[in-house]
């Protein structure tokens, strides 16, 4: 099984040199820590920044420099600031190469639910609906099952949707999955110590297992 760090490390391997990447809140944020030094990657923060850097040193926080999670951050040399309309303009125009975000549920046809639980206080979708509707390349980082032990990889989402037919890949603590255009979760890699049988048992949606499934290398 992977821990959160392991999931983040595995996702970092999906990032290519020259990518502009948008990282959601939670595990996706951790991914930034594992992008290889040799790779030139620019992080987009949808509140209006390209070139997000690490957290500031204590005492150097600037209230005017935050990310989409409202955290104080820094800007790297070569950063650019823009307004919210241009920020989502470049997202819709598919200039952001990769979006990594968390989810409550993903369906076997790539639908995603990650913003609302009926009966609970709804905080809002923020930029998630824009990101999932626009990005060519969306990777979901999440736990395979919810706190009640129920699978989050489903035939159909039960929660209100954030977007439809959009998730391309999922990384959980159990494995790595492609979401096939024709539907279904194709198992690509298993987490260390996890069997295909374990994954089958934890996956409610259609799981596709072909040939030998290698273990995740990070």
């Amino acid at each position: 099984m992977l821990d959160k760090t392991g999931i983040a490390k595995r996702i970092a391997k999906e990032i290519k040199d020259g990518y502009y990447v948008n990282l959601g809140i939670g595990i996706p944020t951790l991914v930034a820590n594992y992008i290889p030094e040799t790779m030139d990657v620019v992080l987009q923060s949808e509140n209006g920044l390209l070139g997000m850097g690490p957290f500031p040193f204590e005492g150097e926080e600037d209230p005017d420099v935050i990310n989409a999670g409202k955290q104080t951050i820094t800007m790297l040399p070569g950063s650019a600031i823009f307004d919210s309309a241009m920020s989502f303009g470049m997202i819709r125009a598919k200039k952001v190469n990769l979006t990594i975000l968390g989810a409550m549920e993903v369906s076997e046809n790539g639908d995603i639910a990650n913003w609302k639980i009926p009966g609970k206080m709804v905080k809002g979708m923020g930029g998630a609906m824009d990101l999932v509707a626009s990005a060519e390349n969306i990777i979901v980082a999440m736990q395979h099952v919810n706190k009640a032990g129920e699978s989050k990889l489903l035939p159909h989402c039960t929660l209100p949707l954030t977007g439809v037919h959009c998730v391309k890949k999922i990384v959980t603590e159990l494995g790595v999955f492609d979401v096939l255009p024709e539907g279904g979760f194709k198992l690509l890699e298993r987490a260390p110590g996890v069997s295909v049988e374990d994954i089958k048992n934890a996956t409610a949606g259609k799981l596709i297992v072909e040939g030998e499934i290698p273990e995740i290398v990070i």
Partner: protein
Amino acid sequence: MSNQLLNMNKVVSGADEAIRDIQDGMTLMLGGFGLCGLPENCITALVKQGRKELTCISNNAGVDDFGIGLMLKQRQVKKMISSYVGENAEFERQLLSGELEVELLPQGTLATRCMAAGYGMPAIFTPAGVGTEVAEGKETRNFNGKDYLMEMAFDADFAIVKAWKGDTMGNLVYRSTARNFNPVMAMAGKITIAEVEELVEPGELDPDHIHTPGIYVHRIFQGKDYEKRIEQRTVRVKE
């Protein structure tokens, strides 16, 4: 050419004068993202003024004791139009009790509906929300094999924004990510009020670096006592 010096003076004495004619029931746009780039002086004045039944278009709803949260506490807000309203207990209480109406929109839709108003475009198309409850009651249209929602330009009585610097003609410059929604809202108000940290004379701002041309701004003043509260202070330790 007769007028060698432009002097289209839009300066008002302060927040109280700037918001003087806001009435009960009006629709206000308020710039900022989280607590960053908020028109703090105007919010304080709005709380003091005490208008009710306001509709507020703002990406977030502040926190309990800062930003729009202060207006919520006074029950001045009938409806919030936002993309994310977390971190506010009073907000949650009013929402669950039915005192407060909330329309949640994708953040890009919110921004682009502001821009549409400022650019005289009655509607825009966005894929955000297609196939979700956001699409309910909205026209869906397919272009080149992809579905889009038609979203209408906002119609706000006042837009209230915060800039870093501004000149007496209303030209505005923002600083870092405090820019966020401020420029798109500044374009979108029937009346636009700008509060700035530093008010300067025409000619002091480089024309190439102005983010909001003064034509969009009706009233401007230099604000005071900016708190610039940080919502999530995250730091790293020097090694």
